């Protein structure tokens, strides 16, 4: 019993026991999730707020959000019950849960902080962290921590009372000497630290010389084993990078080890250079030394490039060219000595050659005779001599030299190459391309020579130098000796022709700094040569003689003469010789637009000519490369013709040339340049223009029409055959002059307004009737019928908008408006086509008859249209009708110009009959103005 009772009393039970399982009881079904409800202590459903389940209950009995809602305490006036109502405390606003153990204001007894274990209070720390974030300086709780009161737990206090000092171990004091604390204990914090050996065990006996007998020491403080669980996937001994060490490159020994020369070979490689320099950088030892390993640095060591040899060499026996499979003689060669004997620097990878290179045997050029001149001159006389049978060239030469002028002759003989090329150039007939040349120069030199010889033989040639007695044999050198006197210039026939040649080549050539200077070595000679050239340029015939230095000897002069002539021919300006061969490039590279327009113009002219001659084909066809988009090819099931080219469109064409806008502006400028037109005041932008004169974009018919219009307006003539509206114009003009002349002065001003005003139809479209929208055809029919019936009444309202001057013209207005009304509908329809560039669409107006119930009217309208066609007015003129109507309104005020108006209108009509006239509104206005100005002049 007692044992039973004891056993019962011994147990303390916590929580609610599970209900004892009864046998044979069927297993309970698990409660489905939606029935798992949470109830509070009083059995009420607990509602959780917030995204997750952790929210507090809210509201009166957790009623926030429910249908009862918030139920505040009933208001009681505190006027009478001031004393009874205490001030509310914070607790009044707290819920029960707040007073529970884990609430914000626990009401139960808990362990005070003093007695709590040293385990950190996570909640408090968290709260502090939050507070720190919200503090003035984020994260600044340092000050608080500094001045926090020293608070030690009761256990520490007790220990202190017992004589314990911080830093000492706990336990009975020991007799042995205080063990020297290891410096690094605690310095290295690994995840697994080997527990330090107990002080007793690791006690060394060898150094207790200073330990007195009666002194006891506190046991060594034992660092508790830190059983921090490993988190993370790193291996054993992993240590994160220490940024201080890694970045600064100083500090712990491990890092130093990293960069230490690892092996002997490496230390040899880098030598002393390496030791001093230690890099920083994040090349740390991410995987550290394991707990049990002492200094195994390479377990997780990052492989570094410095472990590898980057330079061939070192241990290799040779120079690294062959590696260890080097040929025998290569490795065993003893050529070091020769290398050493070589004084220069041996390039890396090169060795001295085994065998010395063969010396090239250089044959010295034959020594030239002292008076040798490297110029060979082709003497026409020589062939004549040598061509004789039996006379060898050597003999001829000998013959010639025997004349005794060898010394002088030699310098004049040019080297064969120069001379030949010079003569070749002459032979090529470049002179023939020049202007003033004679037939002589077209001949080959031989022929010319022969001819000259013939002439010289017969008479003294007046053209060739008369003063020189040229031997008929053509041995011109002899003449130089024979010649004398200041105007000696015994220029032989050949040199004379050469002189002419030079003259022809140099005449009119602009001096430039780039002319070749053949006598640069001799400045005075060069100066004379340039003087000669400049005279040649001026076309001076005896430039040669004038430019020569008179102070020189005759021999020198003749020699120089020869040289100058030859040089001037040799180095004749390329512009003269080459320019005739090449045409100037047609286009400049840089400016596209100008070039294009010019090119276009020419092209178009050519093509138009071809079109006129009906020569379609090559003349009118251009084919160019065009790059379709890749996707487009794909969609068309066609292989990309230019695979790989990123280009799309035309490759060579600059885009801006081909925009329609450029085209427009061109036309516009052309029109603006037309003489009879006054400048348009309201031409602001391109789009304005296009609105005003959409017809101007029409192209060819327009330009033709314009030209005809100009001619016709410039010669205003009384033209017959007015149209029906024209008739009324005449009548009206007859009626009006008296009233109009009174207002004559005002009209001038108002004309200006009139011009800038939009056409009447616009106003009509806005004000007159809402049903005049062009989309509904039937209505427009009806409306047109109305206007034909009582046009004056209908039109008078918008008319008054403009008739500022008087109402005297109302009757006239009505008369003109009937005329206008007849063309009103088509005019309005044309409005929507005004902003067009290309060919217009036919007006839908004629369709009006097709609507139901208007059969009769449609018939009438068609008849009318037909009639108008008979009068050679096709539908395009409807626009013109509108135009006329517009003008009529102006005319009521412009009395003086009436006649001219009508005449110009007749002109218009005439034009229309002519065919393709399509005149826009302001075109007519312009014409009107021009006629007016013409008259007033």
């Amino acid at each position, binding site marked *: 019993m007692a044992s039973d009772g004891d056993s019962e009393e011994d147990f303390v039970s916590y929580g609610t026991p599970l209900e004892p399982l009864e046998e044979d009881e069927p297993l309970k079904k698990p409660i489905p999730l939606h029935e798992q409800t949470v109830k509070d202590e009083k059995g009420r459903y607990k509602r959780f707020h917030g995204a997750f389940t952790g929210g507090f209950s809210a509201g009166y009995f957790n009623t926030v959000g429910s249908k009862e809602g918030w139920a505040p305490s009933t208001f009681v006036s505190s006027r009478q019950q001031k004393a009874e109502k205490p001030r509310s405390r914070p607790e009044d606003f707290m819920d029960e849960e707040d007073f529970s153990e884990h609430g914000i204001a626990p009401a139960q007894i808990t362990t005070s902080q003093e007695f709590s274990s040293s385990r950190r209070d996570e909640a408090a720390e968290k709260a502090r962290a939050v507070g720190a974030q919200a503090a003035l300086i984020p994260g600044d709780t340092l000050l608080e921590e500094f001045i926090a009161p020293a608070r030690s737990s009761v256990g520490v206090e007790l220990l202190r009372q017992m004589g314990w000092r911080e830093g000492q171990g706990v336990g009975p004091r020991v007799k042995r000497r205080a063990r020297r604390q290891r410096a690094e204990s605690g310095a290295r914090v690994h995840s697994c630290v080997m527990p330090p050996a107990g002080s007793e065990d690791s006690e060394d006996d060898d150094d207790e010389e200073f330990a007195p007998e009666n002194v006891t020491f506190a046991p060594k403080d034992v660092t508790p084993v830190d059983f921090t669980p490993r988190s993370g996937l790193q291996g054993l001994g992993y240590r994160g990078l220490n940024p201080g060490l890694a970045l600064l490159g100083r500090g712990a020994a491990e890092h130093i080890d990293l960069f230490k020369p690892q092996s002997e070979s490496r230390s040899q490689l880098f030598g002393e250079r390496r030791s001093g320099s230690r890099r920083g950088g994040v090349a740390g030892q991410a995987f550290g030394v394991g707990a049990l390993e002492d200094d195994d640095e390479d377990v997780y060591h990052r492989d570094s490039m410095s472990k590898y040899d980057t330079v061939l060499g070192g241990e290799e026996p040779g120079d690294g060219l062959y590696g260890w499979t080097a040929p025998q003689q290569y490795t065993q060669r003893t050529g070091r000595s020769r290398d050493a004997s070589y004084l220069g620097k041996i390039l890396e990878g090169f060795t001295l050659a085994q065998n010395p290179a063969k010396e090239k045997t250089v044959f010295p050029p034959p020594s030239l005779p002292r008076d040798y001149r490297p110029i060979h001159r082709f003497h026409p006389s020589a062939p004549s001599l040598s061509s004789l049978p039996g006379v060898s060239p050597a003999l001829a030469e000998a013959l010639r030299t025997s004349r005794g002028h060898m010394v002088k002759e030699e310098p004049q003989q040019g080297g064969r190459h120069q001379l030949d090329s010079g003569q070749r150039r002459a032979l090529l007939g470049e002179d023939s391309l020049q202007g003033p040349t004679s037939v002589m120069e077209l001949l080959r030199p031989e022929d010319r020579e022969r001819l000259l010889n013939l002439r010289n033989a017969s008479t003294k040639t007046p053209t060739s130098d008369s003063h020189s007695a040229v031997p008929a044999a053509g041995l011109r050198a002899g003449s130089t000796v024979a010649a004398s006197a200041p105007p000696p210039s015994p220029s032989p026939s050949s040199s004379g022709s050469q002189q002419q040649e030079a003259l022809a080549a140099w005449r009119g050539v602009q001096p430039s700094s780039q002319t070749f200077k053949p006598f640069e070595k001799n400045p005075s000679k060069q100066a004379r040569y340039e003087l000669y050239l400049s005279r040649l340029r001026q076309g001076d015939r005896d430039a040669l003689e004038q430019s020569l230095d008179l102070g020189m000897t005759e021999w020198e002069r003749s020699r120089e003469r020869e040289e100058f002539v030859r040089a001037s021919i040799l180095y004749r300006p390329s512009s003269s010789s080459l320019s005739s061969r090449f045409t100037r490039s047609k286009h400049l590279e840089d400016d596209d637009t100008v070039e294009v327009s010019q090119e276009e113009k020419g092209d178009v002219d050519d093509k138009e000519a071809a079109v006129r001659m009906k020569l379609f084909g090559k003349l009118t066809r251009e084919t160019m490369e065009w790059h379709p*988009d890749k996707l487009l090819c794909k*969609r068309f099931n066609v292989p990309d013709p230019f695979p790989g080219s990123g280009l799309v469109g035309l490759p060579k064409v600059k885009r801006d040339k081909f925009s*329609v806008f450029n085209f427009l502006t061109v036309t516009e400028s052309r029109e603006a340049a037309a003489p009879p037109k006054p400048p348009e005041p309201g031409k602001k932008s391109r789009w304005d223009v296009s609105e005003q004169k959409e017809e101007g974009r029409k192209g060819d018919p327009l330009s033709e029409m314009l030209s005809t219009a100009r001619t016709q307006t410039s010669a205003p003539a009384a033209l017959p055959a007015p149209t029906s509206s024209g008739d009324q114009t005449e009548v009206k003009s007859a009626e009006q002059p008296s009233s109009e002349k009174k207002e004559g002065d005002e009209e001038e001003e108002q004309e200006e307004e009139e011009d800038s005003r939009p056409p009447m139809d616009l106003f009509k479209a806005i004000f007159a009737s809402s049903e005049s929208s062009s989309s509904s055809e039937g209505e427009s029919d009806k409306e047109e019928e109305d206007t034909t019936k009582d046009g004056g009444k209908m039109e008078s309202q918008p008319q008054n908008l403009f008739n500022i001057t008087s109402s005297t013209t109302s009757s006239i207005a009505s008369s003109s408006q009937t005329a206008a009304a007849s063309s009103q509908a088509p005019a309005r329809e044309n409005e929507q086509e005004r902003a067009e560039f290309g060919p217009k*669409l036919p007006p839908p107006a*004629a369709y009006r008859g097709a609507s139901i119930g208007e059969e009769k009217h449609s018939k009438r309208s068609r008849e009318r249209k037909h009639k108008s066609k008979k009068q050679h007015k096709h539908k395009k003129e409807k626009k013109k009708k509108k135009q006329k109507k517009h003008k009529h309104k102006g005319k009521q005020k412009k009395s003086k110009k009436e006649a001219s108006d009508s005449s110009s209108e007749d002109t218009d009509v005439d034009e229309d009959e002519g065919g393709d006239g399509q005149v826009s509104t302001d075109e007519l206005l312009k014409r009107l103005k021009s006629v007016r100005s013409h008259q007033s002049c």
Partner: protein
Amino acid sequence: MAFPLPRPQAPQLPQHLIRTIDCQQGAVRAVRFNADGNYLLSCGSDKSLKLWSVSRGTLLKTYSGHGYEVLDADSSYDNSLICSCSSDKTVILWDVATGQVTRKLRGHAGKVNCVQFNEEATVMLSGSIDGTVRCWDTRSRRYEPIQVLDEARDSISSIKVAQHELLTGCVDGRVRRYDLRMGQLHVDFISSPITCVCFSQDGQCTLSSSLDSTVRLLDKSTGEMLGEYTGHKMKGYKLDCCLSNKDTHVLSCSEDGHVYCWDLVEGSLTLKLPVGKAVVQSLSFHPTETRLLTAMEGRVQVWEAEPEVIEEEGMAT
């Protein structure tokens, strides 16, 4: 039986008026057969596009969604799609059955004059008054054109597609042929503003009508002129021209209310079909049969080679 009798020459020209369809959609800007010629599309100036049965002349569907008058339309080979273009600068791809706008493509800077599907209806090509041809993808959901052909210097008035070639007629007086397979652009200069271009059925020739009242047949490969057809009047309006179904005749609208029909080879005028008093704006030849559609003002007329049976005429009138 010595020789079989020569077959009587089949009347090859549609000269009998079969039906007049009053489209009730303002002026008919363009009339087009569909791919097989059983239906016709009429583009009205009241912003609507209508689909009609040619044989019965009944209205099948009205497609409304354009903001301004419809200028051209084309139907895909499988009759499932219609594309149309309008003065409101848009190109619309329609679903034929539902009449809904599948895609509305904006990008042109001006009104769009002409539109055409390619053979597989994967690309729509639209030519506009802004001088560009834009190639729209019907497969993807992109709203930008695949490529913009901006070589033209003026308004594109007409565009045709044949296999891998693209023919555009431009107001700058040039007919451009883009050869996708060769990657070449051939430009033929015809001085006068082009109003309409066509490929011949065999794809060897191009037909172009211009505002100098001339229709020219050019050899496609060389650009030489094979024929010139005059007599009609085309001076101000953008009117259509076409070839007959067997390339035997050239047809063109005229401003004098007739359709002119020339023999292709001889160049002689074989038929002057009086359509009405006004301008014949558009015409379309049946792809296989001798049947012609003309559009004048608000009416579309169907012409055939032989007079129609009476009962159908009764229906039509």
